[in-house]
C-alpha cells in the first residue's frame, strides 16, 4: 500500500486561499472550520517587515500525537489507507484532547460561535444528528473515517480527500492533476492550486515525483522536534513557522 504524502512549495505558493475554499466545498466544512488553511504572519518590523504565509493541511503524521492521546481510539492511523489519520465519528466523545495534542492546530470542534452571520448551522439546520445540511452536500459519507458532513459533538479534520484518493488505481507513484487519467483522484486542495505549489504522491515509492522533490529541493517537515514526523513536506525559503514574539 502506498504511503500518501504531500509536498508544498512555498516559493510557488501565493497565499491565495484557493486550496482552503476548495477544501471547504469538497468536504462540506463550516466557515472557520478550515481543514486546510493558509496562515498569515508578519515578520520583522518597519521598514523591513514582511508578510508571510503558510498553507497548512493535516500533516497525517507517521507517529501522530493525536492518536496516542485519544482515550477511545476514535482517531487512528490507517496504514492500509496510505497512512492517513482518520477520526471515527461513531467513537469520538468530543473530549478535544487530540486538539490539545496536535502541534499543528489542524483539528476542529465546530460547536462554536459562527465566524460569519447568519449562522449557517441555523440557515441549513442539520437533520439525523448532522451538524448542518449544506445544499451542496457531497455524495460521500463515511462516519468511520470522518468523511462527509459531520455529526454534532465530534472533532473533524482533513482526510487527504480519502474519498477521492482511495479510488486511484493501485500502485500509481503520483496523483497529478495534469494527468487526465488521475485528475479525479487528486485531493481538492492539490487539484485546485493555481500556481501548482502542491504535489501529492506515494512516499514509499522511490520513483515518485514527491520523493524527488523532497530529495532535490531539501524538503522539510514542520516541528520535527515533536517526533510526529509529518507526511507533509515543505519546500522553499521560509519553510518554517516564525518564532513567537509577544506584542509589546
Amino acid at each position, binding site marked *: 500500500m502506498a504511503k500518501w504524502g504531500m509536498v508544498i512549495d512555498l516559493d510557488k505558493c501565493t497565499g491565495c486561499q484557493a486550496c482552503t475554499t476548495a477544501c471547504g466545498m469538497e468536504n462540506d466544512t463550516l466557515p*472557520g*472550520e478550515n481543514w486546510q488553511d493558509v496562515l498569515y504572519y508578519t515578520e520583522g518590523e518597519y521598514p523591513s517587515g514582511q508578510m508571510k504565509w503558510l498553507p497548512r493541511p493535516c500533516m497525517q503524521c507517521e507517529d501522530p*500525537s493525536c492518536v*496516542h*492521546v*485519544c*482515550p*477511545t*481510539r*476514535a482517531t487512528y492511523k490507517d496504514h492500509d489507507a496510505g497512512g492517513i489519520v482518520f477520526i471515527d465519528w461513531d*467513537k*469520538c*466523545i*468530543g*473530549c*478535544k*484532547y487530540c*486538539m*490539545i*495534542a*496536535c*502541534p499543528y*492546530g489542524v*483539528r*476542529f*470542534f465546530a*460547536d*462554536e*460561535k459562527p465566524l460569519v452571520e447568519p449562522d449557517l448551522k441555523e440557515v441549513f439546520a442539520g437533520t439525523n444528528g448532522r451538524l448542518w445540511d449544506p445544499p451542496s452536500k457531497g455524495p460521500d459519507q463515511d462516519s468511520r473515517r470522518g468523511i462527509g458532513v459531520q455529526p*454534532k*459533538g*465530534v*472533532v473533524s479534520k482533513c482526510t487527504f480527500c480519502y474519498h477521492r484518493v482511495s479510488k486511484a488505481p493501485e500502485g500509481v507513484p503520483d496523483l497529478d492533476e495534469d494527468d487526465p487519467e488521475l485528475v479525479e483522484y487528486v485531493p481538492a486542495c492539490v487539484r485546485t492550486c493555481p500556481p501548482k505549489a502542491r504535489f501529492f504522491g506515494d512516499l514509499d515509492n522511490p520513483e515518485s515525483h514527491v520523493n524527488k522533490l523532497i530529495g532535490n529541493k531539501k524538503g522539510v517537515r514542520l*516541528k520535527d522536534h*515533536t517526533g510526529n514526523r509529518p507526511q507533509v513536506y515543505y519546500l522553499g525559503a521560509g519553510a518554517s513557522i516564525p518564532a513567537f514574539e509577544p506584542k509589546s
Partner: protein
Amino acid sequence: MTAETTDRRSTALFMPMLFVAAAIAIVTFAIVGFALMTQGHAAFNMDANVAWGLPISTYVYFALMSSGLTLVAALAMVFGFKQYYPLIKRAIWLAIITLVAGLSVLAMELGHTFRMLWAIPLNMQIESAMFWMGVFYLLDLIFMVWKFQRMEGGDWSSRMSRQIGLASFVAVLLAAGTLALVFGMMSMRPFWYDPTLPVWFYATAGPPASPPWCCSPISATA
C-alpha cells in the same frame, strides 16, 4: 450542649439543607443546560484555538480539591496523626462530593458524554493519560465511598478499613498525578509541558482543601 442535642439539631437541619442544595443544583444545571442547548459549547467561550473551556478549569478545581481532602484524611488514615481523626469522615465525605461535582462539570465539556461510558472501556487506549486519569479517579471514588460506608458502620480502624484508607491514598496520588500528566505530557504546549507537574498538582491540591479546617470548630478542638 450534649452530643445528643447536637445530633438532634444537625438532623433537624439536614433535610432543609439538602432541599436547598438540590434546588440550587437544579437551577444551576438548568441554566447551563439551556445555554448548551441554545448556544452549544460557544457558551463556554470555546473555539478552535481554545479547545478546552471553562468546564475544564472548574473540573480541575473540584478534582484537586477532592484529592487534597483525601490527602488531609490520609494524614490520619495512613500516617497515624491521631489529632486529625475528627476530620477524616467529613474530609472523605467532602472529597466524594467534590469529585462527583468535578466529574459532572467535566461531562458538560464533552461532545458525547454517554458515549464515553462504552467507548473508553471497550477501546482501552492505555497510552492516553486521560484514560488513566479516568481509571484512577474512578478507583479513588470507589475506595472513598467504601471507606465512608465502613466509617458510617462504626468500623474506623479494623485491618480492612485501614487497607481501604491506604488504597484510597494510593489511588488519589495516581489520580491527581495522571490528571497533571494530561497537561504536563503535552510537549507541543510549552505553557503546560513539565515532567514535575504532578508534584505541583499535589502541592496545590492541599490549599483548596485546607480552608474549611482552618475555621472549623472541630479542628480547633481536635
